[in-house]
C-alpha cells in the first residue's frame, strides 16, 4: 500500500530541483510520467554531463538518483501535435509540475487556465528560481547562484573568508519544499474537490532556512556574516581534526555538565581547570584557544572512536561523514538507507532509500530511472488508447521526439 497510490503526475521538469519534487512523490506511490524531448534534453542526459561528472556512467548515476521509479515519454512541445498529446495526458492526471522559466508553459499553450479547462481539479505547480512574478522573474539561476541570492552563501564560510557557494543541495532543498506544497494541495483537493495553481520560487525556499538570521535584521538591523562553525552561545562547538587524512569529528557542548563529561573523557588534563574555561560564557570567549587544545586530544584518535568515547558519557559528537563512510556505516546499514536498482544500461546502481519510515505505507524505490521515451508505448498506447500504428508515425513526424 502506498500513501499516494492512484495519484498521476505529469512531470515537465528537468535537471535537479524539479525532478527532486516528483521523485519524493514517486517514493510515496504516485505514478510520475516524465515528459522529455530531444529538443530540450535533461542536463544529465547530455554529453557535457559526462565531462562535469567525470564519466558517462557518473552522469547516468546522477540521473538515476533523481529519477528512479519514474516513467519517461518523449513529446516535442514545439509541435502542435506534441502539445495536444500533452493536454490529453493532463486530462488523465492529478498534478502537473514544471520548472521552466516563468511564462514558458503559457507560451507552449499549457498554462494553468488552459489546463484547468481540460481538467478542472488539476493541481499545477510551476517552480522557477525567482518565481513567476516580480522584476527578476525571467532571470536564470542554478543551485550555485540561488544559494547566493537566498542569503545562505553570505552566512556560510570561515570568519573573514569568502562566501561559500552551495551545491546540488541548493536545488534539492527547494524541490523538497515544492513537494510539500503539492501535498498540501492534494490534501485540500481531497477535502474539497478543488485544484489550484501554485507559483513556487526556489530562492525563497532557501531563504526560509535562515529565518532567524533574517529576523536579526528585521528586528535589530543586524547583518550577519560568516563565522565558521561558531554558535551564538555553545562552546566548544566545532569540527576537530582526528587521526588520518581529512578526518574530523564535530563536538558541541551546551552546558557545564557536558563540559565536565568531555573533560573526563579526555582524562581531565590540567588545562581544563584553567579559569578561562571555567564557565560557559568564558569558554565561549576563549574558543580559539579551547579549540586548539581539544584538537591536540582528538588528533590521536580515529573519528569514530571519539564519537563512541564521548557519546558514552553523554557528549554530542559525530564524525563529519564522507559519502563512502555513510555507505559503509553500521547505523546506515541497519536503517537500510541505501537500496539498489537494476538499470537497463548501467546494471546495478545504488540509490538512497526514502528518508521516512512509515509503519503502514512504507515509502520505497520501485525501479531505476527510465530510458528516454521508454514508456511511450504504455502511456500513449495503453493509457491514451492510441492505435498501435499511430506511435511509429508520431515518432517519424518528430512529435514523439
Amino acid at each position, binding site marked *: 500500500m502506498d500513501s499516494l497510490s492512484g495519484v498521476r503526475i505529469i512531470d515537465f521538469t528537468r535537471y535537479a530541483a524539479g525532478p527532486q519534487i516528483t521523485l519524493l512523490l514517486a517514493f510515496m506511490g504516485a505514478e510520475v510520467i516524465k515528459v522529455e524531448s530531444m529538443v530540450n534534453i535533461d542536463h544529465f542526459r547530455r554529453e557535457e554531463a559526462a565531462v562535469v561528472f567525470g564519466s558517462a556512467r557518473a552522469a547516468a548515476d546522477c540521473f538515476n538518483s533523481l529519477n528512479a521509479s519514474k516513467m519517461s515519454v518523449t513529446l516535442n512541445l514545439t509541435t502542435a501535435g506534441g502539445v495536444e498529446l500533452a493536454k490529453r495526458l493532463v486530462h488523465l492526471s492529478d498534478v502537473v509540475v514544471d520548472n521552466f522559466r516563468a511564462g514558458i508553459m503559457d507560451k507552449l499553450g499549457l498554462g494553468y487556465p488552459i489546463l484547468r479547462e481540460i481538467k478542472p481539479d488539476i493541481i499545477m505547480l510551476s517552480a522557477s528560481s525567482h518565481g513567476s512574478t516580480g522584476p527578476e522573474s525571467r532571470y536564470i539561476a542554478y543551485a550555485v547562484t540561488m544559494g547566493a541570492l537566498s542569503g545562505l552563501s553570505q552566512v556560510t564560510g570561515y570568519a573573514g573568508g569568502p562566501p561559500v*557557494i552551495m551545491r546540488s543541495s541548493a536545488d534539492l532543498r527547494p524541490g523538497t519544499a515544492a513537494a510539500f506544497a503539492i501535498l498540501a494541495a492534494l490534501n485540500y483537493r481531497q477535502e474539497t474537490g478543488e485544484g489550484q495553481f501554485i507559483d513556487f520560487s526556489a530562492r525563497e525556499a532557501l531563504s526560509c532556512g535562515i529565518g532567524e538570521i533574517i529576523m536579526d535584521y528585521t528586528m535589530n538591523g543586524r547583518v550577519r556574516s560568516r563565522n565558521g562553525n561558531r554558535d551564538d552561545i555553545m562552546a566548544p562547538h566545532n569540527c576537530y581534526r582526528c587521526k588520518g587524512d581529512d578526518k574530523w569529528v564535530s563536538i558541541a557542548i551546551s552546558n557545564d555538565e557536558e563540559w565536565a563529561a568531555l573533560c573526563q573523557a579526555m582524562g581531565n588534563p590540567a588545562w581544563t581547570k584553567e579559569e578561562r574555561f571555567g564557565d560557559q560564557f568564558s569558554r565561549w570567549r576563549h574558543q580559539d584557544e579551547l579549540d586548539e587544545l581539544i584538537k591536540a586530544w582528538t588528533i590521536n584518535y580515529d573519528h569514530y572512536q571519539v564519537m563512541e568515547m564521548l557519546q558514552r558519557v553523554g557528549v554530542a559528537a*559525530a564524525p563529519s561523514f564522507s559519502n563512502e563512510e555513510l555507505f559503509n556505516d553500521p547505523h546506515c546499514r541497519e536503517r537500510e538507507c541505501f537500496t539498489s536498482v537494476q538499470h537497463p544500461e548501467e546494471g546495478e546502481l545504488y540509490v538512497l532509500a526514502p528518508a521516512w519510515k512509515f509503519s503502514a505505507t512504507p515509502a520505497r524505490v520501485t525501479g531505476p530511472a527510465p530510458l528516454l521515451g521508454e514508456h511511450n508505448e504504455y502511456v500513449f498506447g495503453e493509457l491514451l488508447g492510441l492505435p498501435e500504428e499511430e506511435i511509429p508515425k508520431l515518432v517519424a513526424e518528430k512529435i514523439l521526439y
Partner: protein
Amino acid sequence: MPKKALEGVKVLELCQMVAGPYCTKLLADLGAEVVKIERPGRGDAARSLPPFFHDMPDPEASGLFLYLNTNKLGITLNVTTATGKGIFQELVKETDVLVEDNPPQWMTKQGLDYERLREINPRIIMASITPFGQTGPYRDYKAYPLNVFQSGGEGYLTPGGVENVDRPPLKVGGFLGEYDSGLSAAIAILAALYWRRKSGGGQRIDISKQESLMALNRLDMVRSANEGEVITRAKQGVPYGGVLPCKDGYTVFITWESVQWDRLVAFMGDPEWANDDMFGDYTGRYKHGELINALLTEWLVNHTQEELYHKGQAAGVPFAMVYTSKDLVDSEHLKERGFFVEIDHPKTGKVKYPSSPYRFSETPCQVMRPSPLLGEHNEEIFARRLGHRQEELSKLGAAGVI
C-alpha cells in the same frame, strides 16, 4: 476570507527548538490548527536563544522562537506528571497528527508510545523526529544541530573547491539542517493524512534528521558505491565562475549551456583572450577553469555587484549577488513577490518575517496569529475545549502540571 489548504487538520506538537516546531509551523501557516505544548515555567528552549528583539533577552522576544511558531496555539503542560498525561491523552483523542521530538524510548517510558495512543485514538498519525531515527546503533546518540549537519554528508563537503583540507568542514547557515528535517517530516505527515482519508488508518512515522539531510545530497551519497568516487571538499566547486571578487565585494555566476558562455564573452565586450581555442568548448573551459577565473577577475573588479547581476542577467548570463539579510529585505523583487509579511506581536510590535516560497491560487498562506506567549491558550484549550474548570486550572498551575 481565503480558504485554507489544511483547514480542519488538528496537530499536537510536543517539540522544542527548530526541527519539530518548523514542521508544525509549515502546517500551521497553511491553516492546520497546531496546539504547541511547552513545559510549564520555562517553555520551549528556543525562547532563550538569540536573536532577541533589541538584544534584550526575554522569553517572549526570541526571534528564533517567534519565526518558528507563527499561527500556533500555545499551552503549557507537563506530560511527565500523571495528571498531565491524562490531559495529554484527552488532547490526543481530538488530534489528527502528533509531532514529537523526544529521544527515542522517552514516549514509551512515559507510557505515551504509539501503541498506547492508538488505543485512545485509532486514527492518530504520530511523527517522531530524532537525530538518528528510532532504531539503529546511533539511536540514542546526542546530536546538536552542528553534529546533525556533519552526520548528513553535506558538512564534509563544505566549503567546496578548497585547495587543501586542513581547515575544518563547516555548517551551512545557522540551523539549516534542522529546518531541512522539519520539512522532511511535514512531507511525510501530509502523505500519511492523504492516505488516511482514503483508508481510515493512522500510522507511526519515524524521521531521522541524518537521513533527511542525506536525502538532500542524494547525488553524492551513492557515488562511492557506484563509481568508487569519494567526494571531498577539495574536489568540489565549479570549473570556473562561482564566487569571484568584483569592485565592491563578491559576485557569483555560473554558466551551464554553451550559449551562456558566448553571452558572457559578449557581455564583457568580446575580450581578445576569449577567442583562444582552449576556451572554445565545454571540455576546454572545464580544463582551464583557474585561468579563466583569473582572466575574468581582471574584468570583474571594475564592475559592481548590482551592475553585474542586473546587467548580466539582461544579457542572458546567470549572474547573482551574495545577498545579505538586508539585501533580501530591501529587494524590490521580493517586495513585489510579497515574500515578507508583517506580523504584530504583543512584545515586539510589528516586525517583518519571511513567509513562504509558494503562492497558492486558492489557499494562500495567511497570518492568523503571531507566535503564542507562554501558556497563552491554556484557558481556551483546557477550560473551553476540554471542559476543565477555572479553579482546577489554577490548582494545576500551582502543582506544575500546566
